[in-house]
């Protein structure tokens, strides 16, 4: 895999140096406002789709830290998505926890599971880790179906999540309440992800990815960096799973097939590795929306079209949709300002 070498100091050098930080903050604030404004602008089904996309985007943000910044491949994060979803379902079904809090519990449970699995699994490198996580994803639906936990998981029947809308004085219907909750968690994870990748952790991750020996020589604890990336990705995936379960209001083993892990993987790579926010967001929109479009194009053969689109995106720009998008905006900006940037050269 060609991994773009992410510039550790990106955003802090170049001619826009002094402007770029406040500008970026302004951009984030504007984006958050747009998301909030959508609450009243969109209707039921669209809000549901938006909630789905943002839940997947949260998961993809975490997985992108692991795959993009830390360079480890996982084909099994759908399993953690499922753990989060089931934790939320059981919390609501058994303990009547308000749905807004379920992602917190799901995150804690997921992190525990991630730490237990991550510790031994992270001794494995590259394809071996991919294979180990792959095994996890394959086992998930069967475990969920098994009678061993059926009393809690509902077995093959699955579980309904009885979700109450926000109190009446807030004037929100069910879809709006769910959507706003998802936006809040999305904002939180966007903030966390940015802090992490721009901070020392991010440097440790990139150094570990690019040259573990040099990283160790520089004093980075390689194992700890890898474990942290793994645990953060698991945290994000379980929270994403919990939010997705809340949006769908139902979980069953068939909701978490092995293919879900591949879909998350696709979201990260097609969205753009190493683009901390835009990539996962675009990737999540891709995996939710594009199958519907390809189905219109060729019903029954939609996955062939979908596959073709994936190949197309990666062939055009290996930095994925985020790469294409930044390419376009910087091209437009260059036209306007008459400057040329060299940031898109491959190293």
């Amino acid at each position, binding site marked *: 895999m060609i991994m773009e070498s992410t510039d550790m100091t990106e955003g802090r050098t170049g001619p826009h140096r002094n402007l770029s930080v406040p500008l970026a903050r302004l951009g984030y604030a504007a984006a958050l406002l747009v998301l909030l404004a959508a609450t009243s602008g969109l209707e039921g089904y669209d809000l549901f789709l938006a909630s789905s996309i943002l839940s997947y985007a949260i998961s993809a943000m975490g997985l992108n830290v692991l795959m993009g910044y830390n360079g480890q491949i996982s084909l099994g994060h759908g399993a953690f998505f499922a753990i989060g979803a089931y934790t939320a379902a059981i919390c609501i079904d058994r303990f009547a926890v308000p749905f807004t809090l379920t992602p917190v519990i799901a995150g804690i449970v997921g992190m525990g599971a991630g730490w237990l699995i991550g510790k031994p699994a992270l001794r494995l490198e590259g394809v071996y880790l991919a294979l180990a996580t792959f095994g996890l994803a394959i086992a998930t639906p069967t475990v969920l179906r098994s009678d061993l936990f059926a009393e809690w998981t509902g077995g093959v029947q*699955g579980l309904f999540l009885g979700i109450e809308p926000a109190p009446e004085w807030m004037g929100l219907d069910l879809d709006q309440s769910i959507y706003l909750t998802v936006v809040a968690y999305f904002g939180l994870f966007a903030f966390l992800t940015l802090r992490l990748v721009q901070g020392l952790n991010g440097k440790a991750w990139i150094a570990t990815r690019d040259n573990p020996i040099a990283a160790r020589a520089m004093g980075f604890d390689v194992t700890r960096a890898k474990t942290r990336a793994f645990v953060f990705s698991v945290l994000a995936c379980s929270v994403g799973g919990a939010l997705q379960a809340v949006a769908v209001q139902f979980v069953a083993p068939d909701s978490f097939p092995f293919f879900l892990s591949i879909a998350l993987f696709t979201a990260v790579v097609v969205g753009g590795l190493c683009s901390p926010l835009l990539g996962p967001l675009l990737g999540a929109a891709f995996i939710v929306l594009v199958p519907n479009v390809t189905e219109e194009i060729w019903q029954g053969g939609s996955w062939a079209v979908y596959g073709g689109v994936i190949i197309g995106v990666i062939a055009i720009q290996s930095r994925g949709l985020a790469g294409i998008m930044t390419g376009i905006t910087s091209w437009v900006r260059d036209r306007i300002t008459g400057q040329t940037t060299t940031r898109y050269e491959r190293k």
Partner: protein
Amino acid sequence: MLKSTTALALGLVLASAAMAADYDKGASDDEIKFGTIVPLSGPASAYGSTGTCIAAYFDMVNDRGGINGRTVTVSVQDDGYNPAKMLEQARRLVEREGVLFIAGNIGTPTNSAIHRYMNQRKVPHLFLTTGASKWDDPESYPWTMPFIPSYAAEGRIYARYIKETMPDSMIGILYQNDDFGRDYLDAFVAELSDESMVAAAVSYDTSTATIESQMSTLKDSGADVFFNIASPKFAAQAIRRAGEIGWDTTQFLVSVANAKSAVLEPAGLAYATGIISTQYLKEPTNPAYAEDADVAAWKEFQSTYFPKGSDGNWWDWSCYATAYTIEHILTQAGDVLTHENLMKLASNLEEFEAPMLLPGIAITTSPEDFAPIEAMSLMKFDGENWALFGDVIAVD
């Protein structure tokens, strides 16, 4: 002249206002739109042809001039047999595309995901191809109705037959340890009303490799009737094992697993001879129906509109009956194409004869009974083919 035209026009306006049609979203003067969600991709995509079948059926209806002058549009969506995707598609159909109702969906876990949604929205969720007994619950879910006979109904049919023809037998039961298995088992035992007839009931998990120990337990119980409630792979193993260990019984096999090629042949046709199962559809390949009008009509439909349809997959003819029933209800609804009216018509079908159902099996529903087909015929495997015997047995 002008006056009379105006008067005529005014008269027409008044007349049409008086007979004003009543529509819910998805119906208009010239169109009826409904949706169906099936797995066109994913592990269960073999069943996806039912969606194609229903759409093809209404292509045929439209070519004949539509229903009461309206064209029928069928929106077929893919859920990949994933419950989460099913909800997304159902919401898309109901909220975005604005369909009048959803019908003909496949699968228990997937339809479970939209069970509540459809009932909250009060949009008809009709004629599902799934055998779970939970769909027949008009009190809690008045907008959901299945089509095919439930596992429970089938279980009761076997119990009734055993009670009548071999009341002194001892029964050994092998069942899959999940909803599917328990639906059969519970209804069967309840209908027997004499639990002492059950010598042993042994379960297996789908993750198990073999069921040899279960079969030995059953043989040791001294049962002389074997009720095989297993999915195809395990059903075949059980039939073979029973033959190998020389457990000589009258065998009953659930309809889910009565396919000749997938179960009986791997089990060994010699071991399978004499097995009793049930059927409610006419099999196009069965020589007994070579002259049958329904089968001829289905074959005609298949060759013109549904070339993908196979005469070896029951769902490819069962969907024909489903589509026919949908057409009937839409025709009956006339100009009152509302959710409420459709549900009223669907829950008041009396002895309605849909094609491809066996003679003597008709669709009957009532506001308290949301199980359209509750009769099946028994059949015995003669070593070569399934042969129906006895009268149609109805349970309700």
